């Protein structure tokens, strides 16, 4: 598989700060993979996301060392707007991402920016509104809809541009559990139907784990752990040490493991946990 993101010895320090936000990052993300990034606040997750989309160093002042290659090209060598045609970013605050007066205008804005024709826009609009369940909201102002709907609009606006790489920076941090689930339902469809490369920075692990092929733990501007999802959570002691609490089912089996009552792999979902527990009881 080819790498879509290739980061080597990357350090980024914002201007007028004492320590770097990212320190010696080495990261490779393969095409078609679903990567979850977790870590405490201030770990550098958002800075990493911005670095992959060219917002850093484009929009921020700071000192950069190392290389950030996206689709085989250093981010700084892309022309204005060129990188955003292949990398889409969804931010945590949906309200702050809206640039238009109706949901439809919002969805269309990005597509017009990249020069799509009216026919292409119409087709993609139909596809993306169906995928995200926004068909009935097209004429509403984005500031009048619910938080969950807002985030789906923000996601749909980026999806409509059909980026090859989609980065979501805490997309559900402001949402209720039902809305969170709906966002992850959309991501699941993208993973299975579209085979997209997706990077999600998220605290809501119970939704993220079933989808993620690979997990990354960040702390203090560094990548502490990078493994496939199952192996990643076998390091639960390290996660707990870094202030990351695994979902209840995982934590439960971790406690069983610590007490010597269970030796196998940890279950990643409630369903897997239920089956494992049934086997143990038998």
């Amino acid at each position: 598989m080819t790498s879509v993101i290739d980061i080597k010895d990357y350090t980024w320090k914002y201007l007028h700060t004492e320590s770097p936000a990212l320190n010696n990052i080495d990261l490779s993300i393969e095409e078609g993979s679903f990567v979850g990034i977790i870590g405490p606040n201030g770990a550098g997750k958002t800075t990493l996301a911005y670095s992959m989309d060219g917002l850093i160093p484009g929009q921020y002042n700071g000192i950069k060392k190392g290389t950030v290659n996206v689709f085989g090209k250093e981010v700084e060598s892309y022309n204005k707007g060129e990188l955003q045609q292949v990398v889409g970013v969804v931010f945590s605050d949906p309200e702050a991402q809206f640039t238009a007066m109706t949901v439809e205008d919002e969805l269309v804005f990005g597509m017009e920016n990249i020069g799509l024709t009216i026919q292409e826009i119409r087709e993609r609009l139909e596809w993306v509104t169906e995928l995200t369940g926004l068909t009935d909201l097209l004429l509403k102002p984005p500031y009048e809809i619910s938080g969950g709907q807002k985030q789906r609009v923000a996601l749909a606006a980026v999806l409509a541009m059909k980026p090859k790489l989609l980065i979501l920076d805490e997309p559900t941090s402001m949402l209720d559990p039902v809305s969170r689930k709906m966002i992850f339902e959309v991501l699941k469809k993208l993973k299975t139907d579209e085979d997209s490369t997706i990077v999600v920075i998220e605290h809501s692990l119970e939704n993220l784990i079933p989808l993620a092929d690979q997990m990354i733990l960040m702390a203090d501007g560094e990548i502490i752990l990078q493994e496939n999802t199952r192996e990643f959570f076998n390091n639960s002691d390290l996660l707990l040490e870094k202030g990351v609490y695994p979902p209840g089912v995982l934590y439960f089996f971790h406690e069983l493991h610590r007490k010597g009552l269970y030796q196998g792999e940890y279950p990643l979902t409630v369903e897997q946990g239920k089956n494992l527990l049934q086997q143990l009881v038998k």
Partner: protein
Amino acid sequence: MNKTLLGYVPNESPIYAVHPFVKLFFLLIVSLFPMFVTAPDWNIGLMVVIVIFMWISRVNMSTLKIYVPVAISMGTIIFLSYTVLGGTHPEFELLARVAGINFYWERIRDALVVYFRVLPMIFTMVFFLSTSRERDVIVAMRSIKVPFVITYVFAMSLRSAGMVLEDFQIVRQAEKARGFDPAGKSLPYKIRQYVMYMIPLFALSLRRSEEFTNALVARGYAFTGEISKVKRADYILTHYTYKYFDYIFIAMIGLAFVALLVFRYGFGYFQVDQSWLMNLLREVVS
């Protein structure tokens, strides 16, 4: 009734069948009418016509009361400027002298003329805001080929204004939650304490502008460079087409304006000395 960033618009209205450009054209042209009319009778007539249009458009008249303080304060300022602050004019007809202030007929007349010129302009604007959603304004501008960047900056300022108002509410609620509530306090106190609102609001605005810029960049928009030269499809405009009645309305508004100019400069109509209302008023005050 729907709340927009510009005011309130009806849920359903026959005016929504009209192309947004017609509404913008109405605003731009009809606002000019009072500039060529000095007789208040005609300007009052224009206001009545606009009120009828509002009624036909199903504008909720009760929401219009928010404009009453504007009309009153504007009238007061105009009246005071022309009378109390109008100076001494021995050539004018003195009606009364109160506390050393001269009240001349000509100054009162001029104040009324100015006031009844400005009022229809406000009525026209209110009509436009009460029947146009934000998108209509953008569509109207784009349909007359106003450059995208200008319409977009306009849309962004509308959006930003809305966001600042929302942020203001958040800050106010946060201050209230901490025990700061200026309700019932004196005006000077309120003004002094407004700093407490302004500082967090300013900080929030800075953060918002950063997020907004990031959102624009993330959506592939740039004001300069190759990407800014991409031909935009202007998809929204595909929802709007000119119908035969749009052309009729445009022609009617245009013809009305031409007729006004012809009657004004060709036949000397709409002059203040022909005003029945002003003549009546003069008889009363004299």
